[in-house]
């Protein structure tokens, strides 16, 4: 190649002296160009030019420029196994490389360019440009040493341009590290649910013109009927409403009463459960120690009946119901003259000691009561204000069925005793009352009212209603108790406040049959014996209890009890047993058959000594005793076997009379053997 250039340059000497550049490296093309341009220009002769003659100079030499590489071999022969001979290869590579220059230009969109741009930005920011260049050189380390400088020159240009643009941070493959992590995914779970489909039903109908017509016609008729009803019923609306109200009330009441019965039963169950041991004692307990007690007995305390509304009231009357022997009535009032207030009539049952069965509040204190023997729902009550009333337990209300008023002859003083009598000839119920105003009145229940009849007026002077005028008001005695004979209808006894007792007859209104100077103070109770027709007992605040034969003026037995005696009662099972209660809280039980002088049981029954016992009653069939006190509570006691001794029955005895007879005989025996003067004297008694 260098020879060619030299030849070309020789040729050009004649013509191309004006050629400004003489570089040997330039290609052939530039030489030809020179030839044509500078053909008409003046020639400059170089010193070492060949000397040629003009003829030789004019000789035209043809030069053919071909693309053939003169250095390329033209006669390469290769052995061809196919032909099995040496064959010349026709095709020879004619290219000859004159110069190689590794370029540093990168396509701007290529990966490497982008990388470089990013790198350039980074480095620019950090101010490490010279380092960048050196870094950039490494990736393109090629053996083209000649182009090294040019490379560097080129690259700064391109890099600078790249650095100017803001590029995204391209990860450096040497410093770049990848990290990855996988979070824990919750495991998948399938849930499904099937709800019940909404319920369905079928419906079918026909829609025809006549159906529609009929329906409308019916509707119109209905409307007309409603209008008529409304017109007619406007006046009755209020009545209907009120009727509805009453109906409602009744139904409510019905519900309540039903509940009431159930509640009552439940209450009884609960109470009996609570007081179970008492109930068992009541039924089964017999005091075994009575054998060792030498004829004496005890009272076993059973239930205590109290009503908290009745606190402050004293028990003023007790009465057992003959028909329902577990039911007894308690009258509440006050004996204190100064403290008179309201009163109460309360009925208790042994089956439920916690709460009364019936409660009747009264305006005035109750002083006495008596339950009718046949019609046990009728209760006669006497009040402190002198009224008497009859309550009907069957009635719903709290008001008495009959009540006496000032017009109808009520007493002017407290009524101390009432007592039912047998029905009179007109079959009307009637009862008697005795009061401090000295009258014994008989009340008859005639239809809706009480009709009174004065039976007798008690007077101080032995029965004469007439007396000196000045003394007449003084002449009236105050009756405090009375009792009717069990068998002799007209006979009755009255006790007075002065201490006298009168035997009277219903038929004689002015005169007493007999008068007994019984006590020094008011006679609190007077009771006929249940069995003996002649014997009665009386007690008084003068601390004594006396037993009388009504034919004899003087008492047969007198017992001094060391305290004012509130009440005395005969036992229903024996003619010789009676009980007395005193204000010092003691119950005395006597059995004349056993001991004529002393009580066979003297038992204090109240906790506080100040409580006074006011009344006592025996139960008709059960061996229990109820005692009322002045604090409003009633206690029940069971009589121990020693107190319940019945006289032995006759071997022949089968009917009532013969059962009663032995008792009579017993008592008779006792009576006969006692002296006439009524003082209890020791001595040799013959007990039959």
């Amino acid at each position, binding site marked *: 190649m260098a020879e060619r250039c030299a030849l070309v340059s020789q040729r050009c000497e004649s013509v191309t002296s004006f050629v400004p550049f003489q570089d040997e490296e330039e290609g052939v093309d530039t030489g030809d160009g020179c030839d044509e341009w500078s053909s008409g220009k003046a020639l400059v002769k170089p010193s070492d030019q060949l000397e040629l003659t003009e003829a030789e100079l004019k000789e035209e030499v043809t030069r053919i420029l071909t693309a053939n590489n003169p250095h390329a071999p033209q006669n390469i022969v290769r052995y061809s196994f196919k032909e099995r001979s040496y064959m010349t290869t026709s095709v020879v590579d004619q290219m000859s490389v004159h110069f190689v220059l590794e370029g540093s230009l990168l396509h701007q969109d290529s990966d490497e360019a982008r990388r470089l741009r990013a790198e350039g930005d980074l480095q620019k920011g950090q101010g490490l440009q010279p380092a960048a260049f050196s870094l950039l050189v490494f990736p393109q380390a090629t053996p083209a040493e000649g182009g090294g400088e040019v490379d560097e020159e080129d690259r700064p240009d391109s890099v600078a341009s790249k650095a100017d643009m803001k590029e995204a941070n391209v990860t450096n493959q040497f410093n770049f590290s990848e990290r990855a992590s996988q979070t824990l995914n919750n495991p998948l779970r399938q849930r499904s649910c099937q709800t019940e489909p909404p319920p369905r*039903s079928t419906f079918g109908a026909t829609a025809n013109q006549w159906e529609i017509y009929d329906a409308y016609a019916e509707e119109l008729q209905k409307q007309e009927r409603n209008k008529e009803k409304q017109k007619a019923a406007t006046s009755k609306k209020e009545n209907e409403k009120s009727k509805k109200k009453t109906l409602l009330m009744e139904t409510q009441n019905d519900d309540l009463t039903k509940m009431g019965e159930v509640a009552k039963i439940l209450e009884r169950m609960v109470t009996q459960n609570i007081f179970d041991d008492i109930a068992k004692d009541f039924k089964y307990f017999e005091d075994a120690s009575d054998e060792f007690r030498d004829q004496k007995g005890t009272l076993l305390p059973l239930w205590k009946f109290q009503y908290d509304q009745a606190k402050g009231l004293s028990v003023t009357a007790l009465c057992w119901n003959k028909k329902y022997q577990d039911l007894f009535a308690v009258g509440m009032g006050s004996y204190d003259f100064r403290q008179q207030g309201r009163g109460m009539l309360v009925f208790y049952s042994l089956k439920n000691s916690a709460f009364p069965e019936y409660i009747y509040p009264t305006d005035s204190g109750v002083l006495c009561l008596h339950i009718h023997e046949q019609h046990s729902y009728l209760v006669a009550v006497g009040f402190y204000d002198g009224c008497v009333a009859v309550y009907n337990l069957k009635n719903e209300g709290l008001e008495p069925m009959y009540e006496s008023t000032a017009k109808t002859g009520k007493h002017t003083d407290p009524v101390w005793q009432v007592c039912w009598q047998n029905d009179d000839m007109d079959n009307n119920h009637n009862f008697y009352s005795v009061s401090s105003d000295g009258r014994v009145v008989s009340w008859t229940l005639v239809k809706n009212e009480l009709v009174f009849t004065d039976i007798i007026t008690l007077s101080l002077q032995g029965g004469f209603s007439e007396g000196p005028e000045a003394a007449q008001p003084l002449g009236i005695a105050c009756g405090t108790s009375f009792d009717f004979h069990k068998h002799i209808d007209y006979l009755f006894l009255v006790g007075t406040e002065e201490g006298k007792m009168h035997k009277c007859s219903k038929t004689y209104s002015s005169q007493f049959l007999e008068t007994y100077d019984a006590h020094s103070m008011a006679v609190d109770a007077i009771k006929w014996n249940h069995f003996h027709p002649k014997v009665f007992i009386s007690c008084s605040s003068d601390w004594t209890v006396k037993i009388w034969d009504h034919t004899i003026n003087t008492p047969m037995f007198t017992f001094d009890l060391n305290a004012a005696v509130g009440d005395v009662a005969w036992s229903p099972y024996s003619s010789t047993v009676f009980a007395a209660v005193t204000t010092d809280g003691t119950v005395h039980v006597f059995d004349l058959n056993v001991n004529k002088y002393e009580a066979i049981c003297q038992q204090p029954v109240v906790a506080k000594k100040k409580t006074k016992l006011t009344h006592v009653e025996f139960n008709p069939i059960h061996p229990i005793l109820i005692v009322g006190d002045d604090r409003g509570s009633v206690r029940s006691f069971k009589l121990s076997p020693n107190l319940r001794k019945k006289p032995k029955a006759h071997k022949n005895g089968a009917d009532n009379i013969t059962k009663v007879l032995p008792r009579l005989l017993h008592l008779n025996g006792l009576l006969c053997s006692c002296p006439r003067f009524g003082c209890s004297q020791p001595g040799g008694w013959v007990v039959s």
Partner: protein
Amino acid sequence: MAGTGEKKEEADYKRLHSFPLIRHTDMPEEMRVETMELCVTACEKFATNNESAAKMIKESMDKKFGSSWHVVIGEGFGFEVTHEVKNLLYMFFGGGLAVCVWKCS
């Protein structure tokens, strides 16, 4: 004379019997009232075209009470349908029109 009388009667009864009369329903009170009023409105609006009235009713019911409701309006047809309980109304209206609306998916 008789003819005119009859015609008058017809007109009368049509007038008298045009109030909406519910024949059978088991819908709750509020729903019933609303549906009845909707039917009346639709029938009055599309007095000549039962289909449009039915369409209006059905679409309103779908929107208000959920899918999917069915409505039949006509003067003479019999039907037997299964409906969701408490979602049926069968009423007469306008003297001679019967509307039956029920829901069943």
